């Protein structure tokens, strides 16, 4: 964790950039943006020590809206960009933001390997069960019977991707579910996620007002997990599978070795070249 900010302390609004979000009115992502700035202010992180990495999609626009270093890359590869950055620059606080399509479909393989590498970074997935930016196609987390996309007129007919279960199986060491309709709890979870040493997944239910208006009902459907985290992966798996997908809170947290090279020189290139001399 980085040193506390210098005085005067930064407030949440100081972390906001002057760029106006492209999101639709009422989009759940506004609350995630607010939670992110509040969490950074709470932690007192210097703006220049934070790097926010994203791919493509509505939620992936987040970096431009936060006054830190950012990288808005290509679809699905944010976790790879973040892994390279964190390996080379372990001093930075690395956050990754994205959506369900970016993270679990086109970026699915990187998601698994980011979990098992357990580098110290925080992945915020804003899940609205739809591809918003391409105008309303089914994503891996869309229910199989959802027929509102012209591309899948009979529904996907496939079981939904289970982010928390996949993350647990792949080796993530901190997993929680938040809801953009509960911003203060979301902020609290995000602070904890950033503080966790290792790969943390914050799965955020973040409704899409435009293509999934029925998600307005989520605020009536969410509920806290019945029991609390034990750090036991077996108990966590049971908690995930017993749940209806709408339970909120910390699912699993464990301290396991973090992958991070030391990047400290012990020799010189001139010395290495000696091996070639006849």
């Amino acid at each position, binding site marked *: 964790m980085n040193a506390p900010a210098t005085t005067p302390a930064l407030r949440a609004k100081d972390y906001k950039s002057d760029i106006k979000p492209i999101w639709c009115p009422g989009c759940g992502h506004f609350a995630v943006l607010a939670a992110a700035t509040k969490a950074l202010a709470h932690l007192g992180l210097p703006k220049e020590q934070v790097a926010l990495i994203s791919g493509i999609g509505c939620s992936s626009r987040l970096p*431009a809206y936060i006054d830190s270093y950012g*990288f808005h*890359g290509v679809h699905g590869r944010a976790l790879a960009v973040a892994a*390279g*950055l964190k390996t*080379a620059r372990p001093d930075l606080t690395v956050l990754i933001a994205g959506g369900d399509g970016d993270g679990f479909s086109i970026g699915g393989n990187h998601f698994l390997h980011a979990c098992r590498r357990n580098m110290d970074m925080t992945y915020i997935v804003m899940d609205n069960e739809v591809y918003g930016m391409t105008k309303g196609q089914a994503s891996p987390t869309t229910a199989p019977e959802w027929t509102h996309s012209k591309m899948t007129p009979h529904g996907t007919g496939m079981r939904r991707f289970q982010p928390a279960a996949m993350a647990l199986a792949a080796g993530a060491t901190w997993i929680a579910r938040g809801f953009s309709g509960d911003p203060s709890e979301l902020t609290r979870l995000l602070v904890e996620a950033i503080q966790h040493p290792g790969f943390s997944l914050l799965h955020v239910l973040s409704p899409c007002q435009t293509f999934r208006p029925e998600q307005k009902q989520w605020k009536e459907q969410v509920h806290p997990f019945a029991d609390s985290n034990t750090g036991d992966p077996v108990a966590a798996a049971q908690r995930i599978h017993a749940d209806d997908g709408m339970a909120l809170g910390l699912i699993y947290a464990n301290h396991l070795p973090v992958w991070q*090279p030391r990047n400290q020189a012990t020799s010189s290139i001139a010395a290495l070249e000696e091996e070639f*001399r*006849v």
Partner: protein
Amino acid sequence: MPDASIAAHSGSFSVAVTGSGGSGAVTTGLILLEAAAHAGYFGMLSRSAGPQIRGGESAAMLRLGPAPLACMDDRFDLLVGLDWLNIARFIDEIPLDRDSLVLADPAAGTVPAVLTQSGARVREVPFKELAGSVADGRANMVALGALAAAGGFPQDALLAGLNAVLAGKGDRVRQASSQCLTLGYEQGIETLPRAAGAARHPVARWNISGNEACGLGALRGGIRFVAAYPITPASEILEWLAPRLEQVGGSLLQAEDELASINMIIGASFGGVPALTATSGPGLSLMTEGLGLAVASETPLTVIDVMRGGPSTGIPTKSEQVDLNIALYGLHGDAPHLVLAPLTISDCVFTTQWAVQLAEHLQTVAVVLSDQLLGQSRTISPPPPNLELPLVRRTLDTPDETYRRYAPSADGVSPMTVPGTPHGMYTADGLEHNQRGTPSSRASDHLEHLDKRLHKITAHDFGAHWAEMSGDGEIALLTWGSSSGAVREAAARLEAAGASVRVVALRLLMPLQSDALRDALAGCSRVWVIEQNHGRQLFHYLKSFDALPSDAHSLARPGPLPLRPGDIVAALTEEA
């Protein structure tokens, strides 16, 4: 045109060691190369392998001589067969003739007709039986002794080579190997007339492979982060770099796939650490989306493509210069970048270093097109020059609040801030953007940044390194990358036979130095474009820039057989 077909390079000696995978053919070759180096020779070793790890075919092919050598010869003086199980698969790669000698173990059965048809003489030596008389003895070491005698290599140099190559194997193995070597040496095999003989050169020499040379060039250029996915024939670059990057304060991350590796190096480079990946054709295909992102966001990075036969999995263990098109044109959008190709094994050091530093300086993508022939071959040659290049990334350590990441500048390069720098915050973006980096789809922003990204590359003065040139004759042999070695030797043979030749070997392919190239070809009566692929990729590229006379000729041969100087001489002589 004068007949140069018989003016073969004199004074060099070529030997091939063949056997099934795991028979020790390549180890035998590596020891001979090291021994030749100890004895004062220059030379090179290329290898041929099948796709199988064990039980397939394998061969080490060496050419040794008193002066530096840049390609394999047309024929072999000596073939040592450890067994004949898979010889038919690669006999095309080892041309023999009446002057050649085959050393064969009678226990391996009759020497196949494909070999004896050449008229080569056969001398039997019971490798296996002799090895059986030594505890832990190995047949390939007996064979090594026999070939050293036939090649006229001093025995003490052989022992020095053996001890160097088997340094990690323990005393017992080295002792058994040197006993076997001595047994083979003492079989009374006559020394061949073209044998190398004793040659002591006190000059400094290196024994290095092209893949190691690319790794070293990367370090010299400042690379401190590598992310990559294993692929033949590029993996040795990564295996060489992994422990050495650690020693110089960097790191290597083995990625889950090439989509990850390219994006990981983008991340590290964004973080201010020069970054590189190495791959081969199929991997480069997977990376091209990321290359577009690096171009658009002006994030410096270098990709080494060790080319192999394609398309698809193609012939993954053999060389072919086939990825020029994808390196030039594979990116989506208008994405100006750099494409370079090393000209020799040892030039892999300089070309990679130059590529890395150009990418850093110009904040763009550099693709280095090595190939299996350069990458997996070793050379004994003078140490590659260590050039200090004044090309570094322009960074800004104390920006103020008005900092614009993509601000215009005279040469199109805008100073970068590195994360951690106060007041330098920006979001790098693959979306088209304005000078601040804010996404923009305005026509004026798009045009401004298209121009900027092109201008910074085309306005750069690349100096004299863009090509290596020799001769001023009226017949121009124009080539690129690994074909340069065979072309240079063909030119020497043609000159020796009285022709008037010049060679232009392109190291920088994009941006094409059209004006310099036209100057280099001025006054030529005939231009030949020579390359190792089927689609005449360089020829068509140069045509598209109107950089060739209208009657220029194309000599394009696909792999997997190496382009030999004799092939080039024959093609040119036939045409004349």
